[in-house]
């Protein structure tokens, strides 16, 4: 696999955790992503904002193998060419994704949702023989400690509130031991209290993982205190801390001012 030649990077410097260069995705001629380039370092917490249709979700689709880019490079940890792998292969590299609309297995219990997520051999026959080991049970209990919901473990996930489903989904990404977490609008539909709790959770997770968080809620983005990237019409419009971005004339025009 050819390593990407990253401009401006010195020899011996560690590879970025995620590297996108010149990524273009068109739907019937419409460019959802337009030569998008983005570098996320290992251990970084990055927030991404941008108006509706800016291409934020499409970017996640490209990283996770759901959508193949027409052009451009996408590398994980400097060595995995993500444009050559399918969704399952990418997930097994340690990339986890929370969908914009919370997606859990509604007809399985909360516990079973986590059971399926916990990292184990993923082959069909391994799954057929898969047993709930003591080690897996410990992992699941630790996940409950992180996301709460322990009291509702035997309830169907479909019965959870919107916010609780978001947490369960984040818990599933942690169970799968993802090192790069992509969270698409994690606080959409949450109460203020839940939003604050989620911000706290994300900050805790950011200590040992790389996180990319897409959000519209500026209050929430500010509370994360991380570097902000503004997407617009499929490419990066601005980058910087929240104050710089909010002061940027172009950003105000296309996004914040509306």
């Amino acid at each position, binding site marked *: 696999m050819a390593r990407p030649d990253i401009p401006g990077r010195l020899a011996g410097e560690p590879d970025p955790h995620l590297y996108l260069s010149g990524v273009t995705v068109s739907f019937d001629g419409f460019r959802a992503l337009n030569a998008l380039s983005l570098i996320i370092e290992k251990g970084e917490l990055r927030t991404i904002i941008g108006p509706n249709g800016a291409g934020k979700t499409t970017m996640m689709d490209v990283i996770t193998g759901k959508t193949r880019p027409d052009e451009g490079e996408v590398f994980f940890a400097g060595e995995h060419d993500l444009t050559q792998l399918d969704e*399952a292969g990418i997930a097994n590299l340690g990339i986890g994704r929370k969908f914009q609309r919370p997606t859990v297995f509604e007809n399985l219990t909360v516990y079973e949702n986590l059971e399926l997520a916990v990292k184990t051999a993923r082959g069909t026959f391994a799954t057929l023989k898969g047993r709930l080991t003591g080690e897996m049970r410990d992992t699941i209990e630790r996940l409950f400690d992180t996301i709460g919901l322990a009291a509702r473990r035997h309830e169907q996930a479909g019965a959870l509130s919107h916010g609780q489903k978001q947490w369960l989904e984040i818990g599933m990404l942690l169970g799968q031991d993802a090192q790069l977490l992509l969270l698409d609008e994690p606080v959409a539909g949450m109460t203020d209290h839940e939003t604050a709790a989620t911000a706290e959770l994300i900050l805790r997770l950011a200590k040992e993982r790389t996180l990319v968080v897409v959000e519209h809620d500026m209050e929430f983005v500010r509370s994360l205190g991380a570097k902000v990237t503004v997407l617009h019409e499929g490419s990066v419009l601005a980058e910087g801390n929240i104050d710089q971005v909010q002061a940027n004339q172009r950003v105000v025009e296309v996004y914040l001012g509306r």
Partner: protein
Amino acid sequence: MRDHPTYPLLTPRGWLVFALVGLVLLAVPAANQWAATGSAAHLPDYLVPLIGKYCTYAMLALALDLIWGYAGILSLGHGAFFALGGYCMGMYMMRQIGTRGVYGNADLPDFMVFLNWKELPWYWQGFDMFWFAALMALVVPGILAFVVGWLTFRSRVTGVYLSIITQAMTFALLLAFFRNNMGFGGNNGLTDFKEILGFPIQAQTTRVGLYVASVIGLGLTFLICRAVVTSKLGRVCLALRDAESRVRFLGYSTTGAKLFVFTLSAVLAGLAGALYVPQVGIINPSEFSPANSIEIAIWVAVGGRGTLSGAVLGAFAVNWAKTWLTGAAPEVWLFFLGLLFVAVTLLFPKGVTGLVQQVRNRLATRAIPRQAEGD
């Protein structure tokens, strides 16, 4: 609070019901063979192959429920897997006829002599051996399902498109098996069997033997299906029915899971077909007719898809009604079937099993305030 779920093959109550149903089914030939003729306990001869046939239908319903009820893939081609299993067993029994055919040819079945064929085609080789035919009854449907599944699941064909493809598959086989030069007896199919494993096929004791084999086959199929649905793979199937992309983003190959369940399901359908043909004494291309496959889906829907006992129940109930109605008022049957289908989809989408559950829940919720009053 740190409790975790367990997934027994069957609960103690489940085993009890399993054993009871098994006993009741096995009582049928006992009451036929040993109860004095004319006594109330005596069951007429015809009931043995009839209920034996229902058992094979129930196996078929279980096979479909596995792929439809659990993995959410509505195959409308399961009749084809059943028929292929049946043809394999039919070929064995054709070879058993030997020189007792009309033409007395030891090497060729009658229809081949009639077509002026000089030697047995290559694909008939080996079918004079029971073990080979029995193996093929499982392998042939399995391979077909694997190939069709591989082509469709891999290109992410789902939902109604998959149903249509499986209908087309069974229709194509129907047309192919109608052709005389396919070498499967054309529209007459395979029939006039004399014996199976050396036992005369018409003898009531042979029929009892086949019946018992069907009951065992049904029990075995049920347990195999239970083993799958209580496994982690079973939960992956339920999960991909809910949110397939989420399963993929967790790192599972949904193609692999679907392919496994679809192939296993076809193998079980083939087993059912192999047990069916000796009991009804004929297999012909009409078994491939697309309507047959749709009927299987109706059995499962009536019983309650996604519950294995429901599939068995549905197969018995609908087929019993069919036997009774086609005897009493044959012109009504198709209307009845249509009505049943509409009723199940609109009024009780979870079938009889769901209906029972609903009634039970309602009784339970009514019982709670009564208890509260007593406090």
